[in-house]
């Protein structure tokens, strides 16, 4: 049965592709800008994702990596399976309470600056699994930067979340790691 309505116009994503370069002083044959912005630009366009896929959202991530949606257009050609070299941890799927220390350890093994994206209902809030054995959202063990709702989210939704991570990385200060806010966040999770 076709539904009488097609779109929810209030829920549309507002993330846009940024095509122009950073602000700076341009002349003939040269361009100067602050180091922050250059580093931000470089980091933004070379985010290496670490797929922590435990269930069906991982399959949707594979579709995002494949040629139709092609996440490598955003500079993440290389999917790393070693946390040491990755910048973005994508937690996809139900995280059971026994799995929680593993998620945390993998997060700790990542080098700074690190970002976390919770993909799907289960990773972000537990979803339908409101039971004794399932962690009710991975933000109970590690800080999450971007949440992507859906069960599982469409590749478009994963790309939408990924572009938000890019936006975060782009506007990140070089001294974020030493800022009090970041230290407080880490202390809140008991991470030294």
């Amino acid at each position, binding site marked *: 049965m*076709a*539904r*009488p*309505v*097609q*779109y*929810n*116009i*209030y*829920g*549309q*994503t*507002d*993330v*846009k*592709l940024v095509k122009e370069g950073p602000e700076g002083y341009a002349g003939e044959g040269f361009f100067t800008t602050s180091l922050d912005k250059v580093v931000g630009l470089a980091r933004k366009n070379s985010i290496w994702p670490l797929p922590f896929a435990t269930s069906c959202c991982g399959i949707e991530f594979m579709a995002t990596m494949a*040629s*139709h*949606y*092609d996440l490598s*257009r955003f500079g993440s050609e290389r999917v790393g399976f070693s946390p040491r070299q990755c910048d973005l941890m994508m937690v996809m799927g139900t995280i059971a309470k026994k799995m929680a220390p593993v998620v945390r350890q993998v997060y700790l093994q990542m080098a700074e600056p690190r970002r976390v994206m919770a993909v799907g*209902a289960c990773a*972000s*809030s*537990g*979803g*339908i699994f*409101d039971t004794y054995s399932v962690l009710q*959202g991975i*933000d109970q063990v590690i800080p999450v*930067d*971007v*949440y*992507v*709702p*859906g*069960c599982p*989210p*469409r*590749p*478009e*939704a994963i*790309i*939408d*979340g990924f*572009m*938000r991570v890019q936006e*975060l990385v782009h506007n990140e200060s070089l001294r974020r790691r030493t800022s009090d806010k970041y230290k407080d966040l880490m202390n809140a999770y008991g991470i030294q």
Partner: protein
Amino acid sequence: MQSLTSRAKQVDRSPMTVVERLYLWNIFKGMWITLKHFFRKKPTIHYPEEKRPFSPVFRGLHILNRDEEGRERCTACGLCAVACPAEAITMEAAERVSGEENKYREEKYAARYEINMLRCIFCGLCEEACPKDAIYLSETFAPANYQRKGFIYGKDDLLIPHPKENPEEYQKAVGSRAKAPANA
């Protein structure tokens, strides 16, 4: 030994021929396949610029429907909240007072209607449970966000625009599902 399938094949262990020994020939054969792919149709959809149409049965963000006169259809019976396997729907009912007949269709309405999009699994059971055709799942996927608190969608995010006061946005929400005029 009897083979397990009819497609089993003996491995060819005969020595290589001169052409095979040349090595370059096989490289060219492989590169030829690579070259052919340059001229094939590109399958990539450049997502943010170019969007793929979704199926009409796609289940995305919810939308609370209004009737032709713009009255809210929801009567806050709570059947959607009961049907919801993720327990993502919360609502608060209120009684319609006189003078509000143009706002609410039934005598009872939802004063507060919230869906937790992080819990929601977009199964469409709320849509099936609704006796008043008040809730539908639309073709819009739920956008990502930085904080948890942005995911509690209230009535202002879910309610369809008023068909009389805001006809342009209403048409946008209805999209291609608009009914043909009755006398056409």
